[in-house]
């Protein structure tokens, strides 16, 4: 069917799936976390769970930046943009994300000047084109995106553009992994490491996961074959009682990462002492803010920020799903109060969130299972 036709190299996929079954055996259960929201989306899209043996369980991690952003930060950013002289610029992913008073798009409908940009450098361009206005870029993303924001700020500073600022919500992946590993109800065996974050940070920052926590991690690409090969590499380590960092995505990810990108981040950002993650709570040193050299471009320093905190409804069990204690559909709100159209919890907010991915693809599962068993 359609999904099977889309796989490249079906024979190799079939062989790799066979190797996974052989390695996994039947004597124990394996719990693997894919950290990146892009992997979560791909796993559901390709129906990989139906290829994998039952004793391999994939747990969906915190790597969806839209999902983990606390609602209070959206409220804070929108409250700055209540000022009629401010243009609120953000990626399209942010536009439908609800704040307590509605999403950026809904604020736009009520008259706020809200613009979609596809690049932080276009937010800076908006500032050049609108010298009488102030353009605030609402920045989100992990290390994949943070260097682009950093370079844009360096350009703003070099050009002396002062009607531009960044409301910075950039987060870093390592502390979130640490928080998950430190959690007492953590039950993971190994990690599928993020692909595009690793183009920036490289593979070294994961070494403590292997060395100190004794968990294998394999940085993986996004094709079905990439993810299946990564699972083979993880199982080989687990079977051999090894724990190391491996790079399955060498065609894109250099071991040392992208030094120019890391330099740009170091020039502009400093770590926040702590930051709140939706679903995970406060995590120390897990997010970036602008450093003193860039204070003039820091929206949080230029404007009064109310510092709104919105707690997720207690019934939403995002934290348990993030840590792999619960499956998305086991949450009390899943598919009832909490849907992709009306998200209550973090993981339903973006299509990369595990609950939204589960919700969007679940109904195809039966059809896919039928088609995939024929190649697996």
């Amino acid at each position, binding site marked *: 069917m359609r999904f099977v036709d*889309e*796989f*490249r190299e079906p024979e190799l996929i079939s062989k790799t799936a066979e190797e996974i079954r052989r390695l996994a055996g039947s004597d124990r259960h394996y719990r693997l976390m894919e950290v*990146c*929201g*892009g992997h979560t*989306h*791909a796993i559901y*899209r*390709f129906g990989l769970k139906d290829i994998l043996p039952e004793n391999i369980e994939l747990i969906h991690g915190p*790597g969806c*930046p*839209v999902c983990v952003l606390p609602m209070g930060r959206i409220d804070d950013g929108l409250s700055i943009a209540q000022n009629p002289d401010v243009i609120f610029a953000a*990626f*399209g*992913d942010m*536009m*439908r994300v609800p704040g307590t008073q509605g999403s950026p*798009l*809904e604020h*736009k*409908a009520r008259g706020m000047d809200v*613009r*979609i*940009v*596809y*690049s*932080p*450098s*276009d937010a800076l*361009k*908006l500032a050049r*084109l609108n010298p009488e206005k102030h353009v605030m870029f609402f920045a*989100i*993303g992990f290390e*994949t*995106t943070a*260097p*682009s924001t950093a*370079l844009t700020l360096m*350009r703003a500073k070099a050009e002396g553009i002062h009607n531009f600022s960044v409301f910075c919500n950039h987060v870093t992946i390592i502390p979130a992994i640490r928080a998950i590993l430190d959690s007492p109800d953590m039950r993971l065996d190994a990690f599928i490491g*993020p*692909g*595009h*974050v690793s*183009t*920036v940070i490289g593979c070294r920052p994961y070494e403590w996961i292997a060395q100190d926590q004794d968990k294998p991690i394999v940085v993986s*690409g*996004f*094709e079905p074959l990439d993810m299946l090969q990564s699972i083979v590499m993880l199982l080989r380590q687990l079977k051999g009682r090894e724990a190391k960092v491996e790079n399955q995505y060498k*065609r*894109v*990810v*250099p071991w040392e990462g*992208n030094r*120019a*990108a890391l330099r*740009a981040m170091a020039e502009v950002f400093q770590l926040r002492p702590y930051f709140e993650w939706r679903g995970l709570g406060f995590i120390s040193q897990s997010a970036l803010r602008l450093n003193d050299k860039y204070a003039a471009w820091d929206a949080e320093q230029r404007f009064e920020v109310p510092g709104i905190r919105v707690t997720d409804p207690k019934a939403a069990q995002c934290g348990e799903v993030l840590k792999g204690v619960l499956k998305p559909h086991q949450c009390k709100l899943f598919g009832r109060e909490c849907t992709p159209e009306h998200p209550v919890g973090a993981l339903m907010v*973006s299509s*990369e969130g595990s609950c939204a991915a589960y919700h969007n693809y679940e109904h195809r599962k039966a059809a896919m299972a039928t088609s995939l068993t024929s190649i697996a």
Partner: protein
Amino acid sequence: MCLAIPGKIVEISGDNAELALVDVVGVRRKIDLGLLQDDRPVPGDWVLIHVGFAMSKISECDALDQMNTLRALGEIDGAMQEVQGYGLEDEDDIEADDVETAQLKISDADLN
């Protein structure tokens, strides 16, 4: 969110070596090369693009694979929408129910 879009460098701007014209399946836009300072691409090279910045150089074969991956993931439309939007070129076409989006279009004929 972490879309990485493959594109081929067509031309590097004469007056600003940090800017390059790239071709993404026929759509040409300016992107920023500032994050590849240590490994500068030249025209003809393929790069992975994220939010308007080249993130890494890749082979042509991997670029075509990446395009197939985006297609298989159902993200090709989103990727092309992103590329078309670079440089504030295109109005967003979020299927905005009743929301007036026309004002998002900013006329900017000058690619430079």
